[in-house]
């Protein structure tokens, strides 16, 4: 059956042969010949570029494998199929928990509408990377189905090389069927939050220095249209779980229990894509100014609030990606090592402001000093910058290419989950381990991203060391 499968940026338009299995037992048969090659798992398509797409190949839509298999309320170990979304885990486990054993996601990206399998395949990070690392650090084991009909259990100490290759493995090593995940105890679902106005990039780094020890979650929203001395101005948000027994607070979680892409109650929606992109420069400027004024001139605003709007502000608007119109948009996310982070970020923000390519969302975060659990995990201890750009063709691509240069000079790299255009040369130089991943990749699996950055699946298989 053909259905249209897009990634979040709606920028790549490919044709796929898609299936949506609903039983794990069907997987070996599907992988072992029923599907055309190459194949790739698809989660909720929250990756922005082409890493969850497979032009001309097969996509295995994992959302039909969305069952919980076990939850141990004493240890916080959750076993579930790989298509379960983080939204569903929060709705079923956290929202309905007993107050004395409040189990929570150890790591969560900026949207809860991602599957567990997708979170592993990109080894996603949250606002607590400095304390908790990436998602993969909390994975105890999983079962992986391969095209030779085998199903391998992988974990630390069991098929460990394949385990490490699959974490951040971009779906190339096979299909993750189900996962054992260690949840974490928290004191409350309410967060103590501080929004702090920052007037320069220096201030961002000073605040980061001061905040990381005592605040679990930190991130800054940056007005990337601000020039000169105002460069880097924005809002630094830091948060931590409130003490037990706090609340309740007035809040409206955005579709907390739904886990669906469709219009859930209490969420706004964007029914069709905006004709020619509503996010023009004027709109972005106005939005940024308003956001800055959220603080109403004050330096710090403190609040007690449900985790949902803090973690997932964009989830409140369904399909907000359609605001960018039919041409879609691109996200650029880089990570650069600590030593050059300040200057590199300055240069990046400078380039962006100069180009006037209207970034609706610019987020600056700190990556902590952690050992990556995956072979191709994205984080490097330092700073990560993420921005969305409406697709305006070559001017946009040129700007991203210039950003790449700055990133590469600092020894940084871009995030495959967000990328749809980085050159093969840059990718390979910044992820030298890519050959090891290629060696572990299932020969029947590939993605549009992988073909783009490796120049085809077949050749690198032969070249790769084993």
């Amino acid at each position, binding site marked *: *059956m*053909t*259905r249209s499968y897009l990634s979040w940026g709606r920028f790549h338009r490919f044709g796929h042969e898609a*299936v*949506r299995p*609903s*039983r*794990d*037992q069907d997987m070996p048969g599907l992988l072992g010949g029923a599907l055309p090659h190459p194949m790739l798992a698809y989660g909720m398509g929250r990756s922005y570029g082409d890493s969850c797409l497979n032009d001309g190949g097969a996509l295995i839509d994992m959302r*039909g494998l969305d*069952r*919980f*298999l*076990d*939850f141990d309320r004493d240890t916080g170990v959750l076993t*579930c*199929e790989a298509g379960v979304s983080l939204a569903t885990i929060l709705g*079923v*486990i956290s929202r*309905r928990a007993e107050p004395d054993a409040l189990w929570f996601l150890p790591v969560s990206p900026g949207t809860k509408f991602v599957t567990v399998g997708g979170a592993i395949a990109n080894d996603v990070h949250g606002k607590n990377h400095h304390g908790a690392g990436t998602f993969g650090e909390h994975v105890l084991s999983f079962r992986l189905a391969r095209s030779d009909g085998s199903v391998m259990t992988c974990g630390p100490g069991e098929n460990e090389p394949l385990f490490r290759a699959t974490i951040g493995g971009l779906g190339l090593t096979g299909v993750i069927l189900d996962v054992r995940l260690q949840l974490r105890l928290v004191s409350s679902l309410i967060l103590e939050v501080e929004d702090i106005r920052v007037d320069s990039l220096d201030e961002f780094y000073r605040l980061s220095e001061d905040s990381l020890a005592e605040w679990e979650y930190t991130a800054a929203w940056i007005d990337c249209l601000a020039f000169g001395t105002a460069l880097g101005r924005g809002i630094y948000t830091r948060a931590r779980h409130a003490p037990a027994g706090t609340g309740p607070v007035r809040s409206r979680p955005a579709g907390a229990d739904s886990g*669906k892409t*469709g219009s859930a109650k209490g969420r706004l929606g964007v029914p069709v894509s905006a004709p020619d992109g509503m996010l023009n420069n004027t709109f972005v400027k106005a939005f940024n100014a308003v956001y800055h004024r959220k603080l109403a001139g004050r330096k710090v605003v403190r609040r007690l609030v449900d985790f949902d709007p803090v973690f997932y502000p964009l989830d409140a608007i369904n399909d907000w990606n359609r605001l960018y119109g039919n041409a879609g948009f691109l996200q650029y996310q880089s990570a650069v090592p600590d030593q050059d982070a300040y200057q590199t970020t300055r240069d990046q923000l400078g380039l962006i402001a100069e180009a006037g390519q209207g970034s609706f969302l610019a987020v600056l975060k700190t990556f902590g000093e952690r050992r990556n659990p995956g072979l191709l995990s994205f984080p490097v201890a330092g700073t990560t910058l993420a921005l969305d750009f409406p697709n305006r063709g070559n001017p946009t691509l040129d700007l991203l290419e210039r950003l790449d240069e700055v990133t590469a000079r600092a020894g940084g790299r871009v995030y495959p989950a967000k990328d749809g255009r980085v050159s093969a040369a840059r990718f390979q130089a910044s992820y030298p381990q890519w050959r090891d991943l290629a060696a572990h990749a299932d020969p029947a699996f590939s993605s549009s991203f992988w073909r783009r950055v490796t120049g085809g699946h077949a050749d690198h298989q032969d070249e790769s060391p084993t």
Partner: protein
Amino acid sequence: MKNVAIFGATSAIAEQVARLFAAEGCRLYLVARRADQLERVAADLRVRGAAEVFTFLLDFDDTANHASMLDDCARRLGDIAVALVAFGTLGDQERCKRDVAAAQAELRTNFMAPALLLTGLAQRMEDRRGAVIAAIGSVAGDRGRQSNYVYGAAKGGLDILLEGLRHRLAPRGVAVVTIKPGFVDTPMTASFPKGPLWAKPDKVAGDIRRAIEKRRPVTYTPGFWRLIMLVIKSVPRAIFYKTKL
């Protein structure tokens, strides 16, 4: 803590309905024929909040064993507050036209088996004032069409049986709820090209849950199918026969 029994619990639609009951903390009795899948569904419902989940393996075509299953249900679950009959198959109409055995299988699973199960359920539930017996029919049962009249006949027959049961049980305060889904995107219809008329099983499940709550005699889901079927039923034969419906 309601006692809910679901027959055909591994069906995509039934599983979504079961999740709604699980979230309410109900006790569930699940019957299906594939052990692994049934256990996975049961495990999921336990995590999702079901107070207790019991499972029973049965091929419903095996009508001689319906009674022992219902006895087991009475023993372990107790009195049923809500029963949902969901199993079914969508056979190949082309084969059914040529192959009597295929037609027989289709009629057996979609009419004979649910009809006899409902008979057993009615017998056990007729004194349970307030209980609900729900079954999934289909819009295909509303009018015979060349493209799937064998399945349609089975679902249409089921419709009449349910109508009769409803009549019989109305004075006893037991509601009989007929569900008529339109096109639902489930494994049953995996090979069909999908268009705007198609609904997701969770949407259909929400409608089913509400129909049970409201004890509504007949529910089309999604609701617009009531109108579509009204039109289809009223098209004069002379015109109808010119279509390929």
